[in-house]
């Protein structure tokens, strides 16, 4: 979860100064800030549980590519504004029910982080869903563009829900909700918004999975090269 927040937060931060209107520049930066804040909280907690003395920055900046377990969706490049919005929407629609359920997690710290993140995610979801509808039902050009983004990104959406032994264990301990249940809630929201946006789910049902197992797309390496640049070039220094 921390990796999802970090990588998507990083992607959104690439927009800063380049947004289609100033108000959206500010909005995307806000979302980016929220995600980086979530990543910070989650990494801090992960480092504490791990107990090897790694802090949030070591976890965020000093792992190898395959140790990042973010979904393939969030590492995809920004593309045009429509691509960024569609990626965000598919992600927010997953994060919203996830955080909602995690507020009832048996782990108090996770529940507390989820509580705070849920407030932010509600706003993110509203923002991205509104834009999907606006672009889908806007002009001919915007409809075509956002439909194309959906066509390209759809195959990565199932990767959000890939389960593994750790996930199964977390579900059994009541730390995490059932990922299948989250997927059901996700589908419901996604289908309803896409319909309002007059967009169609692509016919091609082929899925690209692997992010949760550390098998990424070619894009992540470049992202990490930038993200890790300072930590790699100037090791063991304080900033």
């Amino acid at each position, binding site marked *: 979860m921390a990796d999802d927040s970090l990588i998507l937060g990083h992607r959104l931060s690439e927009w800063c100064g380049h947004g289609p209107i100033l108000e959206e520049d500010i909005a995307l930066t806000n979302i980016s800030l929220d995600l980086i804040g979530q990543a910070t909280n989650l990494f801090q907690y992960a480092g504490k549980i791990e107990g090897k003395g790694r802090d949030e920055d070591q976890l965020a900046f000093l792992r190898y590519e395959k140790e990042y377990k973010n979904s393939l969706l969030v590492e995809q490049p920004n593309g045009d504004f429509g691509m960024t919005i569609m990626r965000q929407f598919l992600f927010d629609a997953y994060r919203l029910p996830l955080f909602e359920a995690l507020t009832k997690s048996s782990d108090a710290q996770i529940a507390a982080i989820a509580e705070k993140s849920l407030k932010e995610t509600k706003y993110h979801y509203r923002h991205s869903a509104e834009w999907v509808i606006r672009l889908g039902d*806007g002009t001919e050009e915007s409809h075509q563009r956002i439909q194309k983004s959906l066509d390209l990104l759809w195959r990565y959406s199932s990767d959000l829900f890939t389960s593994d032994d750790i996930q199964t264990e977390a579900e059994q301990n009541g730390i995490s909700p059932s990922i299948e249940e989250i997927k059901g809630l996700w589908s419901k929201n996604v289908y309803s918004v896409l319909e309002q946006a007059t967009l169609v789910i692509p016919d091609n049902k082929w899925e690209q999975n692997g992010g949760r197992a550390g098998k990424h797309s070619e894009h992540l390496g470049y992202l990490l090269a930038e993200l890790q640049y*300072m930590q790699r070039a100037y090791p063991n220094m304080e900033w």
Partner: protein
Amino acid sequence: MEKAQDILELERRFQEKIDNDIRIEPNDWMPDAYRKTLIRQISQHAHSEIVGMLPEGNWITRAPNLRRKAVLLAKVQDEAGHGLYLYSACETLGADREETIDDLHSGKAKYSSIFNYPTLSWADMGAIGWLVDGAAIMNQVPLCRCSYGPYARAMVRVCKEESFHQRQGFEIISKLAQGSPEQKEMAQDALNRFWWPSLMMFGPSDDDSPNSAQSMKWKIKRNSNDELRQLFVDVTVPQAEMIGLKIPDNDLKWNEATQHYEFGEIDWTEFWEVVKGNGPCNYERVETRRKAKENGEWVRAAAVAYAEKKKNKELAVEA
């Protein structure tokens, strides 16, 4: 048509208000030249905030840790906010926001030249916050008392945030100056590159600043360029000493009699060249902003079209 006599009377009353420190508000009568001067100055200021996002934006994706990344993002976002307030202040004078922005893209409007210098290392984030936001504060604090109400009020908000930025920048560079030899060198290099351009931020020397007298009379400007520059040097030099960095000026010395620092000659040729468009990044900065607008064209069109459709649907339901 107002008669010449009436205009003289209006101008007299206008100046009287200014002399008595009564704020001018959007609906008040004001001379055309006052309006034009303000539109020029406020729009230049707005453009500077927006273009100013780019040099620092250049390091957001390479910030060295999570905290620095978040702080830098928030800072650059503040600058976007400053741009928004200022474009709004400009609109109260009857200027159209889109046209104002197009003037930036066509090269007709100027912005602060400092943003035409590249950011080459992480230390530049420190140098910019410390020196550039620092110089901006010196320029802007007097504007909080500017005769034009909306501009003065925008400046009050902006100045609060700028002083926060200045402290953050100083914190970044202090940390580097106290760090490893590589970090210290990075900090000194950033100071070397940003010192002189920061002094140029106060504009040409008073002898070469033709609009200043009128702006002072209108209380758009309260201090001369050279006064503010001196104030900046006097405040900043001890800060550099405190963190063990050397100001790149061999002529710099304290004058006991005047209680001011004396400093070397500014390279005005460089200043005017950068203003004309020959700085290291003039082309890239404007091009980036122009592209952002161009790439956003379809998004704005969609938003307008959707709003229109929604309104029509609502009307249909009502009918």
